């Protein structure tokens, strides 16, 4: 059962792991899925169509879950890029090296911006608050409640996000501030 790992999944999971480990001293696997989901909102914010985001998510155990991300994570663990430290994982030295190699590729620079913005919220806002907010995303919550096994649909919350962003007056190219705004908005 050897699966194909997509390049985006490979890079996204590696990059997220690198950042979360750096900012939080360790990460749980579901946090990678969660921040990948978070990044997809920022992807839409930059003007892209959600249909071109390479991962789809279902709700599982209260968190978003993506097949493609999962395959990449499993591969990284097999290859020793992620190390198991009991309840948490850390990125190994090799993992950091691999990440530094790949982040220079032009195909990944845009993705790196999104992932960076998503993860930086863990420093700008107290982490527990960030996770609580993300798990509070209406579509995720609804799918957990309904147990209807449908794909998570980022577009159903997105219009509200745009409306509020405009009202608050964010017009920057960069994604850090929208990321922070999204978290603050989700808290309500």
């Amino acid at each position: 059962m050897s699966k194909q790992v997509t390049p985006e999944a490979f890079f996204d999971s590696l990059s997220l792991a690198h950042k979360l480990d750096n900012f939080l001293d360790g990460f749980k696997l579901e946090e990678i899925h969660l921040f990948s989901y978070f990044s997809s909102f920022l992807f839409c914010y930059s003007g892209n169509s959600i249909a071109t985001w390479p991962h789809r998510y279902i709700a599982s155990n209260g968190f978003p879950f993506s097949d493609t991300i999962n395959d990449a994570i499993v591969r990284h663990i097999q290859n020793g890029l992620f190390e198991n430290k009991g309840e948490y994982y850390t990125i190994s030295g090799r993992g950091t090296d691999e990440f530094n190699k790949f982040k220079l590729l032009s195909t990944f620079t845009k993705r790196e911006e999104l992932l960076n913005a998503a993860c930086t919220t863990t420093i700008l806002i107290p982490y527990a608050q960030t996770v609580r907010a993300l798990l509070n995303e209406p579509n995720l919550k609804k799918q957990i409640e309904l147990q209807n096994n449908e794909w998570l649909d980022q577009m159903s919350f997105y219009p509200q996000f745009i409306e509020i962003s405009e009202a608050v007056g964010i017009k920057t190219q960069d994604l850090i501030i929208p990321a922070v705004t999204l978290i603050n908005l989700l808290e309500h």
Partner: protein
Amino acid sequence: MQGRYYFIKLQKVILRNFSLYKKNEKVYEVNEDINEGVYCLAGANGLGKTTFLNSINYGLTGIVLEPNKEVYSPGEIITANKRYTERYFLGRINKKEEEKAEIEILLKINEKYFRIIRGFFEREELRLLEIFSKNGDKRISHFKSKNESPKELNNYYQKSLASEIGFANFDYFIFYQLYVLTFDENRRMIFWDDRASSHALAIAFNTDPDDAEKILDLTRRMEKHESNARNLKWQSTQAKKKIEELTLKTKGKKASEFEELENIFNKLHKELEKIEKIYGNIKIEYDTMLKRQSHLNSEIMQSKIEHTRLFSRYSKPRSKLLENINVQLSIKKQECCLCDSSGSHIADSIVRNIHKDKCPLCNTVINESGNAEQNELLKLIKKNDEKISFKNSELDNLIFEVDGKKVELDKAEIELNNAREKVEDFTEENPDISFKGTGDKNIDTLIEQYKRQYDLAAKEAKDEYNKRDNLKPEYEKLLKRVELSYKEAETVFVPTFKKLAKSFIGLDLNIHPKRSDKTIKLVLELQDTARTESFQLSESQRFFLDIALRMSLAIFLSENKNGATMMIDTPEGSLDIAYESRVGNMFAEYATVYKQNLFMTANINASQLLLSLAEKCGNNRMKFRRMLDWTDPSEIQKEGEHLFKKVFANIETALNKRK
């Protein structure tokens, strides 16, 4: 949307001079008090149960639906069925009684009572209309027919009824009453009929009642433009063929072949529609499989994490050996307490030796099988391992299916493109017609005419397509609105449907709205597969899932104390015995927990269903009526009477048991 309709509660039904029901040479005047909850009319086949149900619907709407016909949109129902209605009662009522035969219905909507009398051959008229409410024992009249013409009475009735219930117009009421709230012997499914479910959804999930009307209107208009365009294209092709024939450019195409070509054209188009539908369905199934795959992967992941956790607990160093002070010291100091060797490898060696079966010092076998905690862990590990391997094989099977489905999808896509190409090719043949004179003045003039026809038709066809396309954005916007308001309703509607369907089928179901280019429909996922075509389910399953959907709609739409009345005609006709008591449960839940009403006719074979229904409802909530009084039974029916009596007795007992 939610809880805003005040549906009809039947109170009383009287049939006068209805010759079908004749006992001992005398016409039986049916006079039934309809209770809240379950009203069940039972009798042998052929006694006229369906007619009774149809008569009530006729009384309410003025329409009897012609069997074996498709589901019409609200605006078309009357036109499509009026002729059938006019003939329906001919065989059931004596010519002599035609004038006198009439149905009287007393119904209640919220706090208002409607009393109507309609003749069986006057479908657009009412003989009497009374609207009143009660204050204790006093009657407060809101309307009483006096000098109005029967047509006027009917119009007023239609307006008032629709408005009282909450429908935007009476056509919607007819649609809901005849198609959604009635499940008759025709077994017309709305769930698996794209247009029907699209209409039902549009009416149900529109916060603005006008929107539903707009959607239906737009559907009609777009379809009209499309068929116009097709016809015009065909005309242009015909003209071209004629020209070619005249200029002898084509070989052997004669007039008779035009008809053949027309047939081919229509066939191609029908084929295209069919393939489009199939492709759409395969796509939905494929998508569902991908979701299922995601889900399985996540579950396997969880189990593997659990596995690792259990293992690390299990393989923790044996406490007895490790807690030994000297061993501890040795590990800490990296120095063997026995031989004083030191080094970084010492700790590893010691730990390794501690894990072996025997004591490293005296070689005694360490039997920890008596250790209760280890045994528990081992049991859990085994169970978890089974779970993982089970899920893995499920995943393997699923991947295999997914691959197959992808092949199917690709194939269908190719076929779809082929079909599209064929249609395009056929209608887009060489657009340029070279106008070469033949020298013959008359023929040339004719050719000139045909050329004009061709140009005109081609242009008009394009116009029609444009008109259709211009309507598309608004149509999609409206559909999106329906989809959005469905999503809002999901949290209430979906659990109700899942619960009802589960109580029948005993399995977990998912239900989603799926929007395609042309419509929005509900898709069912059963047992983590996607069944989009009704033929993938057994007839009973289709049947009752359709009823579950209607019930959920009714529950969702009805205002708290004004539940809808589902009319179900002889449901047990296509029922497996195994399902009977489940169905009884589902009906009972509908009538008790959800406080809706059920008007059903039943054949005496449905004993299991009726019994479980009676047990769950009891006298308070269920009334059981036998048709024996209404007609003379036939010989065969007479013979079976003692059997009937026994069943009836059982049902009566069941009714009385529950208080």
